[in-house]
């Protein structure tokens, strides 16, 4: 059974049934034991009474009781029987109710009654008690080795009927109690699980197009309030994630539209009429240029996606940021030279961080390329670094930042550019800084940007020390 309701009900029914059956059995055993004990006590009392009245005169043994006072041993409807077994092993006396039957000679330790159950005749179950006597009057005689035994039996049909009736009553009572407890349990379990069903129904209404919905069900049991809260938290995270994905997809489509429009327009205009070979060449060159732009965009996006997919870059080795920064700056030298920029790498050569060399190269290349691009004409770029406990902090600063404080807060947004125009399409997609941040996260580092007085743009990297 897979449903919680089914499991709880099955468990409850099994538990209740076991409990009630055990209870019934115990009750039956106690009552049966009591009834039999009372029955046997009465038998033993009778046998003791008869034994006390046994008298030996010469060779003859007799019971001294007046049978007239004990009607249960007489007559046709008598339900009790006795028999007195002499020392010679022969019956010395017997009750008239026995007729031609005999009671077994139930010998036991002297003075201790022995009880037995048997059928006196077919259809007549009896319980019997025998008491072995050693009278002082028999001491020193030859037959002293042959004790005298008094046996009393009583019809046990009534007792057995009572026990049968008790068994039936207990079986019916137990079955009824199980059925009732199952019914009550079903109602209770259903009532208890109702909020779960309500919650499930509410969750079922939430689809990917309405992730803004939240579980609002009131009157939830205390145990389910944390579940509701966690589900709502999960929905909020899902909603944010879907929003991010939609925005990213929208941004990406938007980024591709302009170059696609350029390519389509170029192809359509070219194909609109017959042209000379140089004209076709020129159009194809334009299309190739646009293709390269889109290829660069796709490559950057792929790199971004891979950085996200690899939560931790595999290699961690000791790297000197000073050397890496110098190596990365070399590819920016030409651009910086054209713009008359000055560059200073003040990071100490012995400063080391633990990182992935390729990941860190990507970070420094992007940041230095950005600096070389956006520093004001004849401006300055300088890099400093120091160790703070278990981390290394590297600061890349440049002059001539034109961004407002609000814009500085947006630089890590995917596809964000200070100038929204497509003039720079093909060189800057607004993906460099998001890529830097994600790469650093995967390297166990962080990156922040600040705008300092005088238009100084500062990128602060924190990396694990090597």
């Amino acid at each position, binding site marked *: 059974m897979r449903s919680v309701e089914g499991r709880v009900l099955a468990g409850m029914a099994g538990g209740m049934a076991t409990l009630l059956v055990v209870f019934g059995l115990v009750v039956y055993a106690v009552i049966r034991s009591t009834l039999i004990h009372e029955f046997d006590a009465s038998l033993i009392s009778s046998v003791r009474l008869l034994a006390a009245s046994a008298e030996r005169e010469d060779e003859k043994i007799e019971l001294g009781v007046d049978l007239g006072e004990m009607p249960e041993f007489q007559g046709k409807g008598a339900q009790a029987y006795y028999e007195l077994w002499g020392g010679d092993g022969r019956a010395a006396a017997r009750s008239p109710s026995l007729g031609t039957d005999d009671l077994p000679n139930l010998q036991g330790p002297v003075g201790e009654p022995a009880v037995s159950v048997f059928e006196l005749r077919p259809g007549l179950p009896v319980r019997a008690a025998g008491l072995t006597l050693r009278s002082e009057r028999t001491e020193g005689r030859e037959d002293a080795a042959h004790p005298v035994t008094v046996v009393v039996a009583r019809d046990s049909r009534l007792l057995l009927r009572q026990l049968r009736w008790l068994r039936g009553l207990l079986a019916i009572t137990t079955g009824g109690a199980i059925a009732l407890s199952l019914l009550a349990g079903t109602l209770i379990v259903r009532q208890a699980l109702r909020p779960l069903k309500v919650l499930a129904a509410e969750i079922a209404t939430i689809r990917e197009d309405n992730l803004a919905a939240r579980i609002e069900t009131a009157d939830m049991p205390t145990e389910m309030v944390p579940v509701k809260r966690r589900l709502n938290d999960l929905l909020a995270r899902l909603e944010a994630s879907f929003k991010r994905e939609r925005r990213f997809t929208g941004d990406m489509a*938007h*980024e591709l*539209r*302009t*170059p*696609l*429009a*350029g*390519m*389509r*327009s*170029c192809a*359509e*205009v*070219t194909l*609109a*009429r017959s042209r000379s070979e140089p004209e076709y060449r020129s*159009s194809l060159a*334009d299309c190739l*240029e*646009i293709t390269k732009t889109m290829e660069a965009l796709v490559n950057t996006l792929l790199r971004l996606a891979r950085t996200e997919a690899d939560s931790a870059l595999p290699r961690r080795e000791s790297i000197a940021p000073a050397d890496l920064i110098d190596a990365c700056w070399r590819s920016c030298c030409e651009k910086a030279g054209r713009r008359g920029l000055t560059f200073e790498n003040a990071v100490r050569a012995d400063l080391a961080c633990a990182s992935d060399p390729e990941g860190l190269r990507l970070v420094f290349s992007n940041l230095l390329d950005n600096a070389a691009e956006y520093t004001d004409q004849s401006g300055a770029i300088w890099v400093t670094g120091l160790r703070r406990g278990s981390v290394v902090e590297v600061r890349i600063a440049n002059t001539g930042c034109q961004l407002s404080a609000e814009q500085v807060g947006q630089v890590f947004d995917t596809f964000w550019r200070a*100038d*929204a*125009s*497509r*003039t720079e*399409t093909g060189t800057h997609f607004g993906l460099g800084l998001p890529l830097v941040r994600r790469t650093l996260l995967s390297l166990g580092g962080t990156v922040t940007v600040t705008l300092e007085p005088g238009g100084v743009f500062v990128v602060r990297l924190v990396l694990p020390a090597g």
Partner: protein
Amino acid sequence: MRVLLIEDYRPLQNSLAKGLREEGLAVDVTGDGNEGLWYATSNDYDVIILDLMLPGLDGLSLLARLRSQGKQSPVLILTARDSVPDRVKGLNLGADDYLIKPFAFEELLARIRALVRRGYQQKNPCVEIEDLRVDLAGQRVWRDGQEIALTRREYVLLEYLVLRGGQTVSRSDIWEHVYEFESSATSNVVDVYIGYLRKKLDGQGRRPLIHTIRGRGYRLGVET
């Protein structure tokens, strides 16, 4: 017809300008918002094709300023922004049409022509003046049931005269609306092409339809 193309993505700008010129339109091109505003306010364009994300001054601000200065040139927004709020905003600021990138060049051309016709109150793409019939959409001309082959420049000149619907059109009007500023030709070109048109339309003893109004310009129609 004179069109101003304000688009900063150079490959798109080049191909559009080339295609529009080949379709007989006079095209002025810029990739900067501020320069675009200057062009748009300094001249009387038949259509302005406007990108939204521009350096200097963004397209929507340009449009708002253009309309606030009372310029009525039809504006067709050409942009990658496709959301309904973006379109609504553009149209509410005074744009006349909106086309999402990427687009079919043919569609852009058809929309430009529709805007031009609307600007001259000429909704019917087929205009008939006496026995002259001009299909403005197909760019074909018939006189007396016989199709007349015109060069691109002859056609655009005739189209402008047709759109002016019987008004007297000055040489400078024709110059401004039909020929590009960068063109090396002088205003004498107008007279030359009027001569070519006359030869093709009014030749073979047909009733003259292009009339010279001394000191004022030219008029297309039956002489009254």
